[in-house]
């Protein structure tokens, strides 16, 4: 650079200081304070003020870009939160679906009911067996009613498995009644020649419950009379 043709620009250290200060404001995202400083500094018009102006334009644009970015980021965060909530819902629903596929209800003291609805495939019938047998043991059930009123169609092997499930229940010392067999499944069962001896089947869940009540009635009467005797002997 030639010293004679291009004169030096004289800048007071105060102006230089304020530009440095403005820069440090900008570096910590304090764009408003930065711009205010530059505006005050830019009152003198000379070559250095061009630099100040350019700097202030740059800072303004940077500020705008930054706030735009912040807006987008916060929007994105909101979307992410929403997605996470949805995922959580899906996970809960998946768990609910799994649970609902084998609901076992204790309909009466030591009487379990497994209402089967929907689509029964081989895996589901295997799961049902497992859950039913475990529940019979844990609840010390004396009777399990498997109600298949809600099932129109079953594969022959799956139907066969239901009968095996009934036998497994008997092995545990409980009784298994299959209720609500529809004509289609009745045909399926006889068609594949399943041995139905010892398997109690009833038309409806209601019939199954009535049967249980009739059978336990005697027992209950017996227990009541025992209790009455005990009370009277104590009294």
């Amino acid at each position, binding site marked *: 650079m030639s010293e004679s043709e291009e004169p030096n620009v004289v800048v007071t250290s105060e102006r230089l200081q304020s530009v440095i200060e403005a820069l440090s404001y900008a570096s910590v995202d304090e764009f408003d304070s930065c711009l205010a400083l530059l505006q005050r500094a830019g009152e003198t018009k000379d070559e250095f003020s061009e630099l100040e102006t350019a700097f202030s334009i740059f800072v303004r644009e940077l500020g705008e870009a930054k706030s735009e970015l912040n807006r987008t980021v916060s929007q994105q965060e909101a979307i992410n939160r929403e997605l996470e909530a949805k995922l959580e819902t899906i996970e809960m*629903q*998946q*768990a609910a*679906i*799994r649970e609902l*596929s084998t609901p076992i209800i204790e309909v009466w003291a030591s009487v379990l009911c497994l209402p089967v609805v*929907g*689509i*029964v*495939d*081989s*895996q*589901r*019938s*295997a*799961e049902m067996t*497992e859950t039913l047998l475990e529940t019979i043991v844990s609840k010390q059930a004396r009777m399990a009613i498997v109600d298949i009123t809600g099932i*129109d*169609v*079953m*594969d*022959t*092997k*799956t139907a066969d*498995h239901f009968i095996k499930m009934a036998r497994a229940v008997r092995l545990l010392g409980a009784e298994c009644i299959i209720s609500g067999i529809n004509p*289609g499944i009745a045909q399926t069962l006889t068609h594949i020649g399943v041995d139905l001896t010892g398997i109690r089947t009833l038309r409806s869940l209601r019939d199954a419950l009535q049967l249980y009540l009739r059978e336990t009635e005697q027992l209950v009467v017996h227990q009541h009379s025992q209790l009455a005797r005990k009370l009277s002997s104590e009294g």
Partner: protein
Amino acid sequence: MQAETRVYPIRERSNAIVAASQSRRLALAAGLPTRRAMELAIVVSELASNIVKHGVKGEIRITWDPDSPPHGELVVEAHDVGPPIHDLELAMTDGYDDRGPIDPALILRRRGLGTGLGAVARLCDRVEYRQEEGGKVVTARFFAR
């Protein structure tokens, strides 16, 4: 009317349940009788359960093609990236997998009956199998009558 395909990604058990119940609706909408729609749902359920159990991950594709002669057909395709089926005919035999009879204890451990593909073969009109790059496809066809 154009052939319409629905895709259900299968990763876990609940996906299989959803795919099966949706396929039943699809079959009913296509005009299949109730009983047939239920059989289709069982097939979808078996195939989807197999994907969850053996196929690592995959998807069920259900296509209703009304123009397929004579009265249209519903095609269930089970795609997965698991190992190929060694011997399909053997695998379709109840109590067998693709290499031979399954040990009853193993059947219990697999939490199934070993009759899934057998059920598929019994309930649909035609089963096809092909290997693709990076996976396999089991196809079950239901002809509308």
